[in-house]
């Protein structure tokens, strides 16, 4: 189970106008703007749920995923994942070290795919990266071989494993990325735009796979995407976020009310919330 309570995060962004004089002035006096990426975000996700986390660009989706995966420190709020308390607690007071789950303990139990980044070693065959992950997560031989066999079959990896990452197409690479995140059988999988830039065939393959994973292993999946077909195919629950706040938490039907075309409905929804 995942709970987030009143989580806030803000960034400081340096701003200046165009021009040489402005750039020179900024050398001495920098102006910052405080951007509130997350404002009091709270939600609970039960085990085995598939949640689509959607919102326009810059809404705070990635920030949420980064906080949940333990790589970004929120300013305040409580985060608990499967009973593990991450980050600080009440009133912004830091939790004492032994009350808090360390990054390393936490990340051992989760899988993450960042669609826009790569975790595979660029110049060596994919299987080398997998072997490294086996050691990093201390995966036992039998579990590793079972998982690898299953993932190879479901994601149709086969020959890809022997190919250096740099020579894979984006779709092929994404399938390998997803497999890499699941070698250690995590109970929770965070997918940050897993279908970005993929062709129709690869998209379908990735969706089918995620669905099967959830049904067979009961893996909790949290998915951010801009592709409404991803959401239609996968998410039983949708959380809509905009300007750092949760605007809606419901099912696909709640969004569908407007009409059949999901993209238009969503754009309409964004406009109605002025985000």
């Amino acid at each position, binding site marked *: 189970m995942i709970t987030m309570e009143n989580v806030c995060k803000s960034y400081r962004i340096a701003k200046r106008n165009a021009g040489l004089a402005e750039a020179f002035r900024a050398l001495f006096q920098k102006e910052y703007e405080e951007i509130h990426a997350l404002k009091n975000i709270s939600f609970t996700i039960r085990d085995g749920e598939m949640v689509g986390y959607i919102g326009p660009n810059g809404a705070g989706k990635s920030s949420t995923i980064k906080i949940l995966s333990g790589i970004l420190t929120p300013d305040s709020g409580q985060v608990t994942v499967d009973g593990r308390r991450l980050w600080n607690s009440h009133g912004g007071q830091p939790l004492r070290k032994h009350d808090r789950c360390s990054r390393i303990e936490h990340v051992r139990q989760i899988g993450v795919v960042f669609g826009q980044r790569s975790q595979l070693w660029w110049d060596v065959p994919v299987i080398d990266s997998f072997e*490294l992950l086996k050691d990093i*997560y201390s995966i036992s031989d039998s579990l590793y071989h079972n998982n690898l066999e299953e993932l190879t079959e479901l994601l149709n990896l086969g020959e890809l494993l022997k190919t250096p990452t740099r020579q894979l197409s984006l779709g092929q690479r994404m399938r390998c990325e997803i497999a890499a995140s699941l070698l250690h059988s995590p109970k929770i999988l965070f997918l940050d735009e897993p279908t970005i830039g993929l062709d129709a065939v690869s998209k379908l393959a990735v969706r089918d796979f995620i669905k099967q994973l959830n049904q067979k292993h009961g893996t909790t999946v949290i998915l951010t995407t801009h592709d409404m077909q991803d959401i239609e195919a996968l998410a039983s629950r949708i959380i809509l976020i905009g300007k750092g706040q949760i605007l809606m938490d419901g099912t696909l039907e709640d969004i569908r009310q407007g009409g059949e075309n999901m993209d238009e409905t969503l754009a309409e929804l964004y406009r109605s919330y002025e985000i």
Partner: protein
Amino acid sequence: MKKYFSFFRLRLVTGLQYRTAALTGVITQFFWGFMNIMVFHAFYKADPSAYPMTMEATAAYVWLQQAFLSFFGAWIEGEILYTISSGDLAYELCRPIHIYDMWFARSVASRLSKAILRCVPILVVAVFLPRGYGLGLPVSFPAFLCFLVSLTMGLLVMVALNMLVYGSCLYTISADGMRVLFASLSDFLAGQVIPLPFFPEKVQRILELNPWASMGNVPFRIYGGDLAGSEMLQAMVLQALWLVILAAAGRLLFAGGEKRTVIQGG
């Protein structure tokens, strides 16, 4: 421990793939080594009594330096800096490993893989060159063992110093400033341009205390017999001391850096 060794191994294997880079490296280093030795010979002929090392020790210094250039070269691992500036660090933070240890293992492996490919041809040829121009045998067997120990420690000191540059990059995003500063200081202070004994004595005494002098300076001089006895022991203790200090400082820097790191962009 095993996971860090795996990192080490994979980086080593990756590094061993780049054969053409190694070949061109070997050729460059041959020429550079010859040029250096010619220059030192000219100095030696001008006034042998004012010459601070023996010619044999100087030649050994130059060839070892060329063979193990990748151990003590002032470069910073571009891969790791790219991981930080591109945000791929996000993935590294998602792993149950200590970033410091992982990058340490990775840097050692990368320098080692370069040296493995380059050192053999250089050493083999250098051994067969005439006396005073080539690489003689080590002065004694114990000295050779000390050379190996000191060479290893030197490599670790270098990587520990590199780690401080990576660590500072967790705070500043762009590492260009640190990189240039590090590169220009490093070669000079480490005796990569000219061996430290060639500096004026007072300057030399100060230079020998800085961490850069705890890299190639010590093993290369042990090999040729320029550094021996209690002086050698002192230098090796100083190496160990720097290693401990730099590694501790690096871990502190990383502990702070990991917390305040923000992976930018979607």
